[in-house]
Structure formats: C-alpha cells, structure tokens
C-alpha cells in the first residue's frame, strides 16, 4: 500500500521537483527594485524649468537652451523660455511674471548684478530654486554655473604678456559693457596680472559695449597711434570679431596677439582661431555648462532641499583654443548638433 502510494507519488514528486527547478531561473531573472529611481522620476516629472537669458538668438543662450531641453525633457520636464531680447526691463518683467507662475526652477542669465537680485531672492523664498548662469547677481542663489571671469582675465592677460616678451610691451584692453559684472571681473583679472608686470604699458582700455563695430573703431584708432602694439586682451569673441578685423586691416595679424573668450561654438571660436583672427580663445564650453545646470536641477529637485537653504557654485573648466587644437573635433561644438 505504502509502496503503491509511493510508486504513484514518485512521478508527482519528481514532476514537482522539475517544475520547482524550472521556476528557479525565472526567479533569478526577477531583478531587484532600485528604491530611489521611482522617487527621482516622480520629483522631476511634470515640473517646469523657466529660462530667462539676456536674449535668445546667439550661440551661448541657444546652446544652453538646447542643452537643458536635451537633458531634462526625457524626464517629462518642461523647459520654457522668456526672451527679453536685450531689454533689462523686459527681463525684470518676465522674472516678475514667473514668480506668480511658480515654475520649479528658474535659470537666469543676469544682464547686470543688481536688476534681478531682489526678485531672485523673492523667488527662492517662494519655493522656486534659482540657478544663475555665467553672469551672476549680488544675490547668491541655489547655484551659480559659469565661467570664473577673474580667471579668464588672468589667463588671457598672462598669454598677452608672454607674447609681448622682447617686444614693445604696449597692450590694449577692449572691455565689454561697463554695467556688466563679467566685464568688471575680467578687468580685475587683467589688473591682477599687470600688477606683477610693471614693464607692460596699457595704452588703451575702453568699453566697446559688446559691439563689434565699436570694438573695431576703437582698435583702429589705437593701432594707428601705436603700430608697435604687441597684444590685445578682448573680453568676448562675439565682439572681438571687430577687434580682429581692425588688426587684419592694419596688416598686423600674427604680430598683435589677440586673446579673447567665448562659448566655444565652432563658427565663432575654432574657425576664427584657425583663420588667425584670434590667437587664443578661452572657451567655457556651453554644452558642458548646460549639462552642469541640468545636473544641478536634477539634484535640487530630487533631494527635496528647500530653495535658498543651500548655495553652491560650479565654475566651468576652461578650454584654451589655440592653433594647435582648433582643428580638432572636440575643442569646439556645433549649435546645429546640439539642437538635434
């Protein structure tokens, strides 16, 4: 009886064992649920990032916008833009309106250090995280992502001083707009270097207001007065196209060392260095800056930290673009690629 039963059960037990063995691999394929990604996704999905540049339609601001969209939209975030088109009052108005629209994050590109400062402080009080980009204000918000302008001034001035060795030691400085902090900080960097080099004589230091035509007019006059000039420190490659045109017109390309800085877009940076217009262009690499901003936004939102309680900075690692690397694929970036 017992044997008979066993004999009957045997295949059953065997079958069960086989079935159990068969389910084992299936169990092994069932992964572990990562406990944090769900919350991360939830923290980001449906949130809005409002972006207020000084103006759209130029390589820096278009690049930042494209980079932010590329990084954040796959997580179900919305990136909206308010374009003040170089008008400071339109920008202040845009930021004020955003205060009531309550986006999760504001990405702000300040035209000067004062105008938005109070508004940004209010935004963080009302729970909107604020990220300032490249041009900061006097109010320190959750994060600043951008170039260290003093370092840019120092490195460009050092390059110009070096190029002047054994020459006339006469240099010129083409500043941006006087109201912009970036211009003032860069000038401070230049002064830091010049303080160590008393032999260098600054024959002209004027503001061209970020305007290529004005930069050209100033440089032309300076070069006529001082044809033996050995170097120029420019403050932005978009403006220094004019500076370079004046140097070229005077037939001094290669003799007058021109150092400038910019976002590193191929047409505005690498191509011009290759053509000899600029000798050094310090790039703050806009796609990396955009990625830094996006990373900051992801962290701020997923950490649930209260806006205004943490304050940090990410200073961009600068890429010096010279004749040596201007032809490489990686030194510069293409706006058209970033938009894809």
């Amino acid at each position: 009886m017992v044997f008979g039963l066993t004999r009957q059960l045997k295949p059953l037990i065997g079958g069960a064992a086989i079935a159990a063995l068969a389910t084992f691999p299936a169990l092994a394929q069932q992964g572990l649920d990562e406990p944090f990604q769900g919350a991360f996704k939830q923290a980001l999905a449906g949130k809005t990032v409002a972006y207020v540049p000084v103006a759209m339609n130029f390589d820096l601001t278009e690049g930042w916008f494209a980079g932010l969209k590329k990084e954040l939209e796959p997580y179900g975030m919305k990136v909206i833009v308010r374009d003040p088109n170089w008008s400071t009052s339109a920008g202040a108005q845009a930021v004020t309106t955003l205060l009531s629209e309550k986006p999760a994050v504001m990405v702000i590109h300040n035209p000067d250090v004062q105008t938005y400062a109070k508004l940004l402080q209010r935004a963080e009080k009302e729970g909107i995280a604020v990220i300032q980009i490249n041009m900061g204000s006097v109010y320190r918000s959750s994060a600043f992502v951008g170039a260290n302008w003093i370092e840019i001034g120092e490195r460009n001035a050092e390059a110009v001083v070096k190029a002047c060795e054994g020459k006339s030691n006469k240099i010129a400085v083409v500043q941006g707009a006087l109201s912009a902090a970036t211009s003032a900080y860069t000038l401070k960097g230049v002064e830091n270097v010049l303080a160590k080099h008393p032999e260098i004589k600054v024959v002209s230091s004027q503001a061209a207001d970020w305007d290529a035509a004005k930069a050209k007019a100033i440089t032309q006059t300076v070069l006529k007065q001082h044809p033996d000039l050995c170097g120029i420190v420019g403050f932005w490659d978009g403006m220094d196209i004019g500076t370079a045109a004046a140097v070229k017109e005077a037939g001094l390309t290669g003799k007058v060392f021109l150092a400038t800085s910019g976002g590193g877009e191929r047409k505005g940076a690498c191509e011009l260095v290759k053509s000899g217009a600029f000798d050094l262009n310090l790039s703050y690499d806009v796609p990396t800056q955009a990625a830094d901003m996006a990373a900051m936004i992801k962290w701020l939102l997923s950490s649930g930290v209260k806006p205004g309680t943490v304050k940090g900075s990410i200073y961009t690692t600068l890429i010096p673009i010279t004749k040596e690397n201007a032809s490489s694929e990686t030194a510069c970036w293409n706006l058209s690629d970033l938009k894809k």
Partner: protein
Amino acid sequence: MELKQINQQGIVFGIFFLLFVAFAALLPGFATTQNMLTLLQNVSVLGILGLAMAIVVIGRGVDLSLIATLAVPPGLVLQMVQDGHSLPGAITTALMLALVFGAINGWLIAYAEVPSLFTTLASGLFLAGLGQAVLFNLDVVQWSPGMQGFERLGQGIVFGIPVSVIVFIIACLVVAFLLRITRIGAYIYAIGDNPYGAKVTGIPSRPIIVLQYVLAALIGCFAGLVLAASVNSMPTRIFNSTMIYDVILVVVLGGIGLSGGRGGVLNVVIGTLLIGTMLNGMTIMDIPYSGQNLIKGVVLLIAVIADSFLNPRNEETAQQGDI
C-alpha cells in the same frame, strides 16, 4: 543783427574747428594723415545713414526704421550665402527686400497718411522681428567663404584711402546731385517746406514721398553692406542699439531742421565730422566710455543752446510740423 546770421551749421562747424585745432595741437598723433583717414572710416557708415535720414527729414518726415534696413537685408545677404546661395543672387534679394520695405513705408505715409514717426517706428520693429524670427539662425550672422572678396567694400584701401571713405564720398556726391540738380530734389524741398503749397502747385507729392522712403531704405541697406564688410559679420541686434539717435543727431546737429525743407549734404558732412572728431580724440585720450558720453552730451547741448539763443523761435519763425 549780425549775430543772428550765424546759423546752427556755422556754430557746429565752429565747434568742430575749435575741437580739431585743439586736438591737433595737444594730442600727439592726431593730426596725421593716417589718423584722419581712420577718423573718416570710423564714421563713414554713420555718415551714409545720415544722408538717408537727410533725404527724409528734408521732406518733413523721419525714418526710425533706418537701422532695421541697415541690419536685416545685409544680414540676409550673409545668411543666404552661408546657406549656399550665390552672392549676386543674395544681394539682389536683399535690395528687393529693402525696396519693397521702403515702398510700403512710403505708401503708408503718403497714401494712408499715417504719420512717419509711427509708421517707421512700427515697420522697423516688424522688419527687425522678421529677421530675427524667420531669416537668421543667430543674431550675429557670420561671414562665410562664399563672401570672399566682398569684404573689400569695408576694409579695402584704394590709393591709400579706405574704400568705406571713398564710398561715403561717392554717396555724398550722388545725394547732393539728387537734391540740388534734379527736379525730384527740388520737389522734396518744396514738399518739406510747405506740403500743402506743394500739392496745390501740382507737384506729385505722394509718389515723391514714397520715393523718399525707398531711397532711404536702399541707402540704409547699402550702409549695412559696408558695415558688414567692415566687421566681417552682421551683428543684427544693432537694431536695439542707440544708433538711430546718433543718425538723427548727425542730421539735426549739422543743421537740417526737423521741420523740413532746409539743409543738405554739407550739413550731414559737418555733423558727421564733429561726431567723428570727438570720438577719435577721446579714444586717443583713452577717456572711459561713461566719460565719453558725458562729454558728447555737453558738446551737443552747447550746440543746441547756442542755436536757440542766436535763432530764437517765435510765431513767425516757427513752422507747422516742428518737433
């Protein structure tokens, strides 16, 4: 009595002369041929725009859209060449755009009788917006290999004289010929002096007004091409700058009254020379930007105050349409 015969043109010329002599005596390197040519080159675009504005102002109008025609059609040339179109094709398209734009401006002012101030304020915004939204990829339209050779218009030198200066001189001669020798010129003065009188005497006022704005747009476009060739790019957001005030300043400072019917090319040249001399001298002295604005303002105020003292306005001298 005799003092009253000194007009604004004389005053501005006097100030220019004094400044010039002072700079020449005090600033080393100012009174050299090279520096004089640089001075002229730096203001040639402003001067060409001044000529366009002069034509309109003499006809008792004003064209605030001039900077838009300076920026957008030439920007289109650079953009089209960048996109692979031929240079002649691009230039033709740009000139057509300027022509149509000028004609629309003129039609609105002459036939729809919208005041020129409002028409050109709005149409300039429209054209600049069109450029930004539809025509250009980026604010600063870059030079491309297809433009090779064209930069000579702004950077070349012929017989030791920069091409942009030669271009300014030619533009002066053409506009002076138009205003002084041709019948159209006489009509423009007549319309500016007394529009109703001109109409009564059978002058085709409306077509002439349209022509004024077409000419202004074409000259503006031409100035833009010189500017683009000069800086190897077209910074189209120049539309947002204060350049239009500089242009009006050159015209009014030179002595072309905003009430129309008076002045000519010589006034534009004098206004341009004064601005050019001030800018050049201050650059050599390395006066900072804010200081330059201060000095510019003071000199302009002196010119305007002197004029209102020497030529006080009253009911007899004031004209309808005075701003």
